[in-house]
């Protein structure tokens, strides 16, 4: 079941649609589907480690209360149906406060038949304990009580902190953290605690079970923040805190928070001034995670999922260790898995060309370079051709990954304005900054608050994307909200739409049937550059996905040449000069959008 924070797409990916068709056909033929449960969103009915048996709906229309299974974003969701409408339905995990996004009814592949827990099979149809039973469901009054308690706790925390900037706080587990703050920062320091939108706030965010708070403090005496971080870490490990963090906690200064507001997500700011305090795993220095993230994005893209990482990891290392690792947080496992693949000489990937190593070197990052060299050494042992097309897939993927790294230098002129801010970031943040610069702050702030319905709560960036092509969600909340402000009639679609990349949103507006195609890295650049370079662009051609990639390559190629000449990328892109062009492109997009609508 899903753990992502991004909303479900309006359209089912072609692979998911095919999987849905296949499973429905098999279920219709009487062959049940067996699925492992990987989250606790349906506890106590289903908990992690359970196995479920799914059967066909047998041509009946599922009724509210029934537990249904549907496929989206490459995963199976097992949630309870809470409302049926004509063509869509609303589902919700039993432990969730808010429902998932509406899905088309045709996405449902089947219904829950049985559960296997610790070897014991419970057939719901053969017992009185049907999934619809109130004994299994979490009762509505409990749900309401939980929500009410949350709001009470929020108020209590806000009052207890007595900080002028604190406008929202998180769950009870964070009360004790907040209580540690006074005295550990300077007396006159101000601080705010932000949390990203989540089910705890009653927002619609399927599959999310954690809350990552962000502590923003005013400039304090040097050394105070690391000390605070140590204190909090110690408090966590010593059990002073009532409850452990589920997610992670970020600590940063107001100055960096302003950069966040201007340029995007936390992950772009891998500075030592950003402190990351996690729950089950603790790390100091988000920059390390960031570097690892850059590296293993290649790995993740290739394997496509954590499941792939698990599988590959199991074949690389001793199994007893796996049993331990499998219990660790996915992020940690991901890094470990990547490292294992890099360091293990038995790794069998090849065909990684020397030119790509050069590109890594050009990035001026020692870890990237050394990892690339290790990777190359491993890849050389690979036999060709690969029946699974692995080599060609990896080459394409690595190319995209490298271009992503190179592209991040677009952000550099921004960051060079402040030497303290590191230079790694994503183009989406750059794009987002344009949006922010194009509109007055009041408009997007108001729009955000309207969207999230919780004044003061910022929707922070999600964790590192699982694949490079999933980078688009970085821009989703702001981009969608801003676009929604400009196009109120599309606001709902924009916000719902997973393809939040700015260009992809426009493209999807033209061609909804292809929206999933646009959820891909580079769509923003490709679209805007295409519009810039081709005033008489034919939307049919423009939105051809294969052409987008080609266009992206064309746009990037001169930059790659310049990159080789100048490792520091200084003055590579003059943002101020480009800004009017992008605004012009934006207007062009709007015109195209309006033309397409009229047509």
């Amino acid at each position, binding site marked *: 079941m899903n753990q992502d924070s991004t909303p479900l797409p309006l359209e089912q990916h072609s692979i998911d649609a095919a999987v849905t068709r296949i499973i429905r056909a098999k279920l219709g033929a009487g062959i049940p589907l067996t699925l492992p449960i990987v989250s606790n969103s349906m506890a106590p009915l289903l908990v992690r480690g359970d196995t479920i048996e799914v059967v066909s709906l047998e041509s009946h229309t599922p009724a509210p209360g029934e537990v249904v299974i549907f496929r989206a974003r490459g995963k199976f969701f097992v949630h309870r149906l809470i409302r049926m409408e004509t063509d869509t339905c609303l589902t919700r995990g039993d432990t969730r406060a808010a429902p998932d996004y509406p899905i088309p009814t045709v996405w449902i592949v089947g219904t829950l038949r049985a559960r296997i827990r610790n070897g014991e099979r419970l057939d719901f149809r053969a017992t009185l304990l049907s999934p619809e039973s109130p004994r299994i469901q979490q009762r509505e009054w409990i749900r309401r009580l939980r929500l009410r308690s949350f709001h009470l706790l929020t108020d209590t925390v806000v009052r207890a902190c007595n900080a002028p900037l604190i406008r929202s706080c998180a769950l009870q587990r964070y009360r004790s953290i907040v209580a540690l703050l006074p005295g550990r920062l300077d007396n006159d320091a101000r601080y705010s605690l932000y949390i990203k939108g989540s089910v705890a706030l009653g927002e619609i965010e399927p599959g999310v079970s954690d809350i990552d708070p962000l502590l923003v403090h005013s400039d304090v005496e040097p050394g105070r923040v690391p000390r605070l971080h140590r204190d909090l870490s110690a408090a966590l490990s010593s059990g002073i805190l009532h409850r452990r963090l589920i997610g992670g906690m970020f600590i940063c200064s107001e100055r960096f928070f302003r950069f966040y507001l201007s340029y995007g997500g936390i992950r772009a700011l891998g500075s030592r001034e950003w402190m990351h305090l996690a729950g089950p795993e603790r790390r100091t220095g988000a920059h390390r995670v960031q570097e690892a993230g850059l590296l293993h994005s290649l790995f993740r893209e290739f394997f496509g999922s954590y499941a792939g990482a698990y599988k590959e990891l199991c074949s690389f290392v001793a199994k007893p260790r796996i049993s331990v690792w499998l219990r660790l947080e996915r992020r940690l496992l991901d890094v470990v898995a990547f490292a294992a693949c890099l360091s293990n000489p038995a790794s069998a990937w090849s065909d990684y060309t020397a030119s790509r190593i050069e590109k890594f070197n050009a990035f001026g990052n020692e870890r990237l370079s050394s990892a690339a060299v290790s990777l190359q050494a491993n890849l050389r042992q690979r*036999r060709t051709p690969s*029946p*699974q097309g692995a080599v060609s*897939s990896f080459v394409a993927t690595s190319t995209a990954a490298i271009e992503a790294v190179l592209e991040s230098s677009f952000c550099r002129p921004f960051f060079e304005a402040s030497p303290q801010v590191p230079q790694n970031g994503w183009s989406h943040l750059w794009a987002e900054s344009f949006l922010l610069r194009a509109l007055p702050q009041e408009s997007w702030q108001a729009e955000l608050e309207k969207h999230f319905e919780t004044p003061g709560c910022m929707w922070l960036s999600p964790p590192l994307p699982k694949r490079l092509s999933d980078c688009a969600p970085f821009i989703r909340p702001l981009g969608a909200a801003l676009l929604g402000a400009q196009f109120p009639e599309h606001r709902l679609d924009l916000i719902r739409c997973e393809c939040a990349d700015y260009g992809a949103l426009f493209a999807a507006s033209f061609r909804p049937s292809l929206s999933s195609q646009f959820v891909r890295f580079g769509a923003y650049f490709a679209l805007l550059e295409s519009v810039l370079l081709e005033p008489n662009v034919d939307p049919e051609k423009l939105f051809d996905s294969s052409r987008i990639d080609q266009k992206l390559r064309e746009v990037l190629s001169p930059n790659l040449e310049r990159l080789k000449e100048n490792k520091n990328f200084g003055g590579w892109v003059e943002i101020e000069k480009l800004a009017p062009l992008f605004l012009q492109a934006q207007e062009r997009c709007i015109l195209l959008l309006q033309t397409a609508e009229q047509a």
Partner: protein
Amino acid sequence: MKPSPVFSIPLSTGWEDTGSEIVLVSMKNGGVSILTDVAARIWRALVAEKPLAQISSDLALEFPESAAAITADVEEFVNDLVREGFLSCGVAA
């Protein structure tokens, strides 16, 4: 003489050919696999009940520079499918 293995698609495997790729679904564990390029071709050949030797030789004609490795690669790929439950393996009588 060593009996040649015979591969078949079990009832628990569902698949669909989208033209550019093959989508495989295992009803045993919900596993999904996407086969592209050469892998998709091998699957189609398996569905057409071509023997592995013929599949390998067909590929070798197309990739003469890697002909020596193709047989092993194809066998490895098919064994992967068997291991993941997408294919079942028997022995010809």
